[in-house]
């Protein structure tokens, strides 16, 4: 067999855990297989030799020669393997990239065993691995690796010393068999007791038939395994890529999970971070960390369950529904949710939704913009009178096009999912949803006709040539404070007074008149953030713990779809201090569940998000919104 040729027809090696399969390069696999076969054969033969030694001298010589052959060929083979391993290690480190210490170690080993070049090579490779692991600051051993290393180190040590002891004992006593070596060992009591210890391990002693075994043959036989596994430890692919839901019972368990979170080499992906024992912790574990994490949890008595099946069902259903509704879309009307639309086009679709789903959707006008464009809100309701309601708005900053686009998709989603999605159905059976898809229609039109980067309203400012007020600095929450400009030309101009902008005033009036709004959710872009109050001050709101936990849960739901990560925190700590913001007003007004979303992306395209990302953004945002809405439904106040 050519040493450099991969052998593809060998089965993967299975270890003790059924289901775990060791994935390795075919070459290393084949080498390991042959080596193991030889080991097994040799052990068998050594036992044979031992028994044979008892009586039948006639066959001894035959066994001896055969075993000796096998032994020496195995020896040679092992040495050859280590040469290759060294070669492999060098190559892996982009050739010959040894630092001074390692080169020195190699040179020492070669000289130490000058009579046996293979041994020298082997020791060089051992030391190289050990040194590399030590010198490398990121000692990246998985817990499996650690166990194997410790175990083999101990076993090797014991065998090594045993051989040494036995050998020296034998020499001293000239006793042929190991069974008497211990008692006959006059050298020291520690040698004797060690001898007994090793015997207790089950080691039958070195066969007399071969040349006295060296440490490297028997004592260190497990080290090759270690050396083989080390470069490949990342490739211990266990195909179960799992998501676990961990239920913590107390602070101590939360802290243990936070410790787990900090172990970066595990590459854990916490959808819900461990923060309080009240909320479960959802974590996605890459395939090769699953065993380690589960072992950690079990050893600390932390209960967990596997979540992935649930998620898979959800994802499949979502995809199914999307395909179904898209199909229906194509047949019934031509509104393409995957592109950006003009204001007129969006308004036409609002009418279409209200008529197609007239049993639950109705369109209300809550006011007019500065330039007299209607402000339309979709009401999703299954009846009742003045039920507790959830408010969602989008597009308050006109250049954030993905928000208006997502809002209209979400409108469609809510309308079409009623009666199909049990969670949404139960929600709408208890509560209403109000959705303002375009909060700033004047600005939106301006971004289409004149300036794509326009943010504010289009109201004229007295005494200034500059137009417009930042509608999200105009609310009555810390108005006039830091984080908003008093310069009309600024993009964060707060306006002459709170609620001076008719777009803002209309929403305030609506909410006050309704009187039963339970959640206020607003969509912005970009930055991928999920924020709760406050923005006008950097102190925590009274409901900080609950809002933070809920925010993290929602961010986890968002991430579950496409892996998009949202940072969760208060406005002030996460983005900047900003006074006069909408969710600060709604929170201080008494609407506890006030959240602001900043949707995709994180700055590459920014406001100019490609249309191809509209539907994925809307889909994931919807999951986050739904999470919050479900919580609102289940926690009336």
């Amino acid at each position, binding site marked *: 067999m050519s040493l450099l040729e991969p052998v593809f027809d060998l089965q993967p090696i299975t270890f003790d855990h059924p289901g775990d399969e060791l994935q390795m390069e075919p070459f290393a696999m084949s080498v390991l297989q042959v080596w193991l076969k030889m080991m097994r054969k040799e052990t068998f033969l050594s036992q044979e030799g031992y028994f044979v030694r008892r009586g039948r001298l006639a066959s001894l010589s035959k066994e001896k020669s055969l075993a000796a052959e096998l032994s020496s060929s195995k020896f040679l083979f092992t040495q050859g393997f280590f040469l290759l391993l060294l070669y492999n290690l060098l190559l892996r480190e982009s050739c010959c990239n040894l630092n001074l210490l390692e080169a020195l170690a190699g040179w020492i080993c070669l000289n130490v065993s000058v009579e046996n070049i293979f041994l020298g090579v082997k020791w060089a490779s051992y030391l190289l691995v050990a040194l590399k692991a030590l010198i490398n600051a990121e000692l990246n051993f998985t817990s499996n690796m650690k166990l194997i290393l410790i175990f083999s180190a101990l076993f090797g040590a014991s065998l090594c010393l045993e051989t040494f002891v036995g050998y020296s004992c034998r020499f001293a006593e000239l006793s042929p068999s190991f069974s008497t070596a211990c008692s006959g060992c006059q050298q020291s009591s520690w040698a004797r007791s060690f001898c007994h210890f090793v015997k207790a391990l089950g080691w039958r002693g070195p066969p007399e038939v071969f040349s006295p075994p060296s440490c490297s043959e028997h004592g260190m036989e497990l080290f090759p395994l270690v050396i083989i596994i080390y470069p490949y430890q990342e490739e211990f692919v266990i195909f179960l890529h799992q998501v676990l839901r961990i239920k913590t019972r107390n602070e101590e368990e939360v802290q243990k999970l936070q410790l787990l979170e900090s172990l970066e080499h595990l590459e854990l992906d916490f959808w819900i971070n461990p923060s309080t024992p009240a909320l479960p912790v959802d974590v996605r574990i890459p395939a090769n960390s699953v065993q380690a994490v589960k072992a950690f949890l079990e050893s600390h008595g932390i209960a967990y369950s596997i979540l992935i099946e649930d998620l898979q069902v959800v994802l499949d259903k979502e995809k199914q529904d999307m395909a179904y509704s898209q199909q229906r879309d194509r047949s019934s009307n031509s509104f393409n949710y995957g592109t950006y639309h003009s204001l007129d086009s969006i308004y036409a679709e609002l009418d279409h939704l209200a008529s197609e789903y007239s049993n639950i959707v109705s369109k209300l006008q809550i006011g007019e913009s500065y330039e007299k464009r209607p402000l339309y809100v979709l009401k999703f309701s299954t009846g009742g009178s003045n039920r507790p309601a959830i408010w969602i708005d989008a597009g308050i900053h006109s250049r954030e096009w993905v928000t208006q686009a997502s809002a209209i998709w979400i409108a469609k989603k809510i309308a079409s999912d009623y009666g199909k999605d049990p969670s949404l159905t139960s929600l709408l059976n208890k509560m209403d949803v109000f959705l303002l898809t375009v909060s700033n229609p004047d600005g939106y039109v301006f971004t289409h006709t004149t300036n794509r980067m326009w943010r504010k309203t289009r109201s004229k400012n007295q005494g200034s040539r500059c137009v417009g007020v930042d509608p999200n600095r105009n609310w009555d929450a810390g108005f006039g404070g830091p984080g908003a400009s008093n310069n009309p030309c600024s993009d964060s101009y707060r306006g002459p007074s709170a609620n001076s902008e008719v777009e803002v005033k209309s929403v305030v009036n609506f909410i006050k008149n309704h009187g039963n709004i339970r959640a206020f959710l607003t969509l912005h872009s970009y930055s991928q953030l999920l924020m709760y109050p406050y923005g006008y001050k950097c102190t925590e709101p009274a409901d900080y713990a609950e809002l933070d936990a809920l925010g993290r849960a929602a961010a986890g739901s968002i991430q579950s779809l496409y892996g998009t990560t949202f940072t969760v925190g208060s406005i002030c700590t996460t983005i900047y201090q900003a006074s006069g913001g909408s969710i600060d007003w709604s929170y201080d007004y008494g609407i506890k569940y006030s959240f602001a979303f900043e949707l995709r992306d994180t*700055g590459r395209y920014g406001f100019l998000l490609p249309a191809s990302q509209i539907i994925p953004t809307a889909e994931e945002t919807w999951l986050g919104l739904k999470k919050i809405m479900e919580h609102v439904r289940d926690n009336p106040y």
Partner: protein
Amino acid sequence: MQALSTAPPAAFLLVLLLSALLMPAAAAPGAKRELNPSSRLAAGAARVALHYLNFQTASPGALRALGQIRKATVKSIPESGHKYYLQFTTEDYKSRENVGSCLATVLYPKTKSPPAVNIKCTYTKDQKQIQEEDNGVYQKIRHQTKPIIGNNIPDSYGNIEPALEPVWALAVAGSSYIMWEKSTENLGYFMAQVKSVKQWIRKDDFIEFDYTVLLHEIPTQEIISCHMRLTWLPGRPLKVKYFCASENQGLEYGSGMESGSAAGILHERGANF
């Protein structure tokens, strides 16, 4: 004899390995204040470090964006400023796949000078491949018969014409210089759009572009228009000259690698958009 000669190295190795495993990680105490990785200060500092890196790398194929911040600490250095120590992952600017992690320090000086950045990153992409990509881009641009011109990249709908993508990438690299210079502890930037680009054909090997880029400034939310002259040769540092005019406040003299030209002042008024 073999046993005796090999026992010492074996014991040595065992000691080495066991001690390595049993050695606890030493926690280094310091006078630093740990920041929440999701805080805006940490994110801002990481972005500044990446602006600096993207400019220094001068390779449109190797642009990086911020992934996740793993660790952030800040230290107040008297007479100097605030120094941030960051550990974060990065993603490829275009494909969003993870391309490695970085360790960076960012010192925001008390004086009006650009932040001092020290950054070291791992890179999982193949360097040779990136170089080849850059060379390919360079050759294609060099062999243009007519100078490249373009407007609104990406357009209002987020589209970038495939042929103009490298031009956009170069703009990102060049703007990174501007954004790095202008960043402070409380002001951060993103490149929002290339408003216009025009190629200047040169007689030597360098490629030269004249850009008007829009920068999005946070937290003020302003859109800053900057005029940028960029020269590039693969493997060489980028040369950037610029000056920026704020859309709402008239001309604001920004410093560049060389001072802004005295001949003619570009004045884009907000109303003209």
